[in-house]
C-alpha cells in the first residue's frame, strides 16, 4: 500500500475536550500509512453557533479555512468532527450554488488577502476517507486484534448524514456498520443511528438534552450494545460526559461507553489503550477491552420462525 497524505482540519474540540479523538486519529493514521497534515493556522468553523448570529461572517469564517486549504495545496480536506465537516462542506457548496454569495464571501476574504474559488477543495469526513480510500478489505487485512465478542452500535449522529447524503441514506446509513464488522465486532441493530445527540442543548435546556441523550443510551443498551461508536466529538461528549447526569435524571442505570471510531479501529489494529488515549472518557472503556475474545463467537442459528409466520420483505444490500 502506498502512503497517502491529506490536509487535516482537527477543529477546536479535538484540541482539548476531545483530545482522545485527535490522539486516536493520529495513531490510526500512522498505522495505516496515512499522513494527516494539519491545516496551518486554521480557525474555528463556528459550529452551529455562528450561523445563528450572522450568516455572512459565518460563511467568511469557514471560507478562510477553505482558502487556506486551497493555498496549502489541498485537494482533499479531512475533518473528523461532524460539525466542522458540515460547515466546510456546506460553505463550499453554497458558494458554488449561489454565485452572489460567493462574491460577497470573497469580498470579505479579500480584506485578509485571501480568495476562495468554490469547488477547489474537496471536503471529506475522516470516516468516509478511510472507508473509501483504504477500503474495508485492506482494513480487514490489517486487523491484528479482531474485536470478537464485542457488540457495538454504530452511531452516526445527524450532521454527517444530513442534509448532504455523502454517507448514503440520511436515515439509515450503513457505512460505519460495515467498518465495524470488518474489525470483527458484532454490530447490533440500532434504530437511532442518525438521531440527534442533543447538540448544545445541554447548555440551554438540560431537560431537553437529557431526554435526547437518554433515548440514545437506552436504545443502545436495549439493542444489546456494549458500546456506542461515534464519529463526532459533540456526540461523544454528550453521550459520555452527560450519561451519568441523564441516568440520574431518569433514575436509570445504563452504562454504555461511547468510543470514537478511530479508537475502535486502533484497538483492532492492535494499538495499546494508552496509544489511543483511553482513560479520558467518563464512562470507562476498561470493561470493553476485557470483553474482547480470542475467537469469533460461535454462529448462532437464526431463530426458527413459526410455521404460520409471514415472510418478511427482502432488504436490498446497501452498497
Amino acid at each position, binding site marked *: 500500500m502506498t502512503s497517502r497524505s491529506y490536509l487535516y482540519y482537527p477543529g477546536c474540540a479535538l484540541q482539548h475536550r476531545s483530545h482522545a479523538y485527535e490522539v486516536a486519529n493520529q495513531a490510526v493514521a500512522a498505522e495505516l500509512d496515512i499522513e494527516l497534515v494539519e491545516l496551518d493556522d486554521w480557525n474555528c468553523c463556528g459550529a452551529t453557533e*455562528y450561523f445563528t*448570529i*450572522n*450568516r455572512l*461572517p459565518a460563511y467568511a469564517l469557514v471560507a478562510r479555512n477553505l482558502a487556506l486549504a486551497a493555498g496549502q495545496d489541498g485537494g482533499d480536506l479531512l475533518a473528523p468532527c461532524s460539525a466542522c465537516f458540515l460547515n466546510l462542506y456546506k460553505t463550499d457548496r453554497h458558494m458554488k450554488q449561489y454565485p452572489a454569495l460567493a462574491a460577497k464571501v470573497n469580498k470579505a476574504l479579500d480584506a485578509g488577502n485571501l480568495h476562495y474559488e468554490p469547488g477547489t477543495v474537496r471536503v471529506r469526513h475522516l470516516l468516509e476517507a478511510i472507508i473509501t480510500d483504504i477500503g474495508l478489505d485492506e482494513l480487514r487485512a490489517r486487523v491484528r486484534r479482531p474485536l470478537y465478542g464485542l457488540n457495538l452500535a454504530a452511531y452516526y449522529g445527524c450532521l454527517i448524514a444530513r442534509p448532504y447524503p455523502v454517507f448514503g441514506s440520511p436515515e439509515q446509513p450503513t457505512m460505519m456498520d460495515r467498518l465495524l464488522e470488518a474489525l470483527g465486532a458484532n454490530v447490533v441493530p440500532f434504530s437511532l443511528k442518525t438521531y440527534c445527540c442533543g*447538540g448544545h*442543548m445541554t447548555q440551554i435546556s438540560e431537560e431537553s438534552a437529557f431526554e435526547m441523550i437518554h433515548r440514545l443510551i437506552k436504545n443502545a443498551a436495549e439493542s444489546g450494545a456494549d458500546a456506542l461508536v461515534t464519529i463526532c466529538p459533540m456526540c461523544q461528549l454528550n453521550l459520555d*460526559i452527560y450519561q451519568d447526569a441523564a441516568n440520574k435524571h431518569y433514575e436509570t442505570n445504563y452504562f454504555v461507553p461511547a468510543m470514537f471510531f478511530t479508537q475502535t479501529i486502533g484497538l483492532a489494529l492492535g494499538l495499546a489503550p494508552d496509544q489511543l488515549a483511553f482513560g*479520558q472518557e467518563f464512562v470507562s472503556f476498561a470493561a470493553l477491552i476485557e470483553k474482547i475474545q480470542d475467537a469469533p463467537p460461535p454462529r448462532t442459528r437464526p431463530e426458527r420462525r413459526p410455521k404460520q409466520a409471514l415472510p418478511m420483505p427482502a432488504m436490498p444490500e446497501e452498497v
Partner: protein
Amino acid sequence: MTAIRTPTLYQQVVDSTPDGHRLDICLQCGTCGGSCPSGGDMQHTPREIFALLRAGYDDEVLRSNTPWYCVSCYACTVRCPQAIPITDLMYTIKQQAIARGYYDQHAAAKFSETFVGFVEQRGRSFEFGLATRFHLFHHPLQSIRLGMVGLNMLRHNRLALRPKSIRQMEQLAAILNKAKELAAKEMQA
C-alpha cells in the same frame, strides 16, 4: 397613492435564506414538527412557526423559543416533502430575532454570542471560558452542578484553562469585519 411598505418578516426571512423561497410551497403537512428531536419542548412546532410567519404574526414568531431549540440536525430538511430548507430558515429567524431586539429572552442567543465572541477574539473556541462565562452570567444556579462536570473534565484532561489563539488573528478580524459590514449593508437593502 402608494405607501412604501417595509418588507414583511416572511419576505425578509425567505429572501435571506438560500432556497428560502421554497417556503412558499409549504403544505403544512407537519413532517417537520414530527421529525424534530426537540419538537416536544418547542412552544410552536416548526410548521406552526411557518404558518404564523406567513400570517404575519411576526411578534409571536420572534418571541418563540422554537428556533432556539433547533439542534440543527436537519431531520426535517431531508424529510420535507417540498424540500424546504427548514434548518436554514431557523437560522435566519434567529438572526432576525437578534436584529430586532428579541434577544435577551433566549439563553441560547447568549450562548451563541458568547461562543462567537471567543471565536472572534482568538479564532478558536474556548470551552472553559465559554462554560464559565456563559453560565456565570445566565445560569448561576446551574453552573454549580455543571461546575462538577467541569472539574471532572479537568480531571480527565479534557479542559484547557488557557485559550489558544490562531497566528494571523488580524487577518481573520479583517475578514470578519468586512463580512459584518457587508451583512449590515445587506440588512439595510
